[in-house]
């Protein structure tokens, strides 16, 4: 997890498109400028960044569902619950399941767990659009490979 670069996910651990299910994981860094303000002397990962991890995990599900041919983006969140503090060094597991596959949008159910314990959950509305530049698809695929997505299985 590199917060300053919004590189939230370390790895994609489960990428089961048939089951419409994705799991990712990430270790909260020991140090980050984010913790200088949140909070001085008591570092806590902001809840919005937990939401962002859910967004990235959902994004991988949508990328897979569209054969990496559309760019997913975050459009809304409901039933958001941040249930526990998340501190540096914790290993987060983000779990995403498809709730509804609509026309141009999806609803996903998301959980984040630490050592099996639920720390946050939410229902996200995700939309898809055409890639806004010709360079971006290759960059997204490269990032997915770095995160461990077996792209050969996707096409």
């Amino acid at each position, binding site marked *: 997890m590199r917060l300053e670069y919004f590189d939230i996910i370390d790895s994609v651990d489960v990428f089961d498109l048939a089951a419409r299910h994705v799991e990712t994981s990430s270790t909260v860094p020991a140090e980050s400028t984010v913790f200088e303000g949140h909070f001085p002397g008591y570092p806590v990962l902001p809840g919005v960044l937990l939401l962002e991890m859910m967004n990235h995990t959902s994004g991988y599900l949508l990328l897979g569902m569209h054969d990496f041919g559309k760019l997913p983006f975050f*459009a*809304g969140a409901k039933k958001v619950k941040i249930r526990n503090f998340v501190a540096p060094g914790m290993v987060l597991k983000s779990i995403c399941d498809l709730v*509804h*596959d*609509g*026309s*141009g*949008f999806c*609803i996903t159910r998301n959980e984040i767990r630490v050592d099996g314990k639920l720390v946050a959950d939410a229902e996200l*509305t995700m*939309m898809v659009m055409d890639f806004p530049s010709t360079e971006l698809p290759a960059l997204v695929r490269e990032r997915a490979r770095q995160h461990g997505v077996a792209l050969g299985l996707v096409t």
Partner: protein
Amino acid sequence: MSSTFDVVSKVISETSEIPLEQITPESHAIDDLGIDSLDFLDIVFALDKKFGIKIPLESWTEEVNEGRASVDDYFVLKNLCARIDELVVAKNA
């Protein structure tokens, strides 16, 4: 048995917190009811589930953008209900 309009108006009322009595078959979802695009996604999500269909928002948007249909064809509620009825018939065919 509830009519399509009964179901649609109830979904809109619950999703967008609009009093049911303000919603008529002639209502325009955007111009009269003030529903924005994200609220409309919530409504479509609920209608997809209620009717067991997939409302083709992307192709409707394309038709409007290309001038093959007007916004009213989909956003005036009586027209939206007619489209839903067509989708339900197609699903059951």
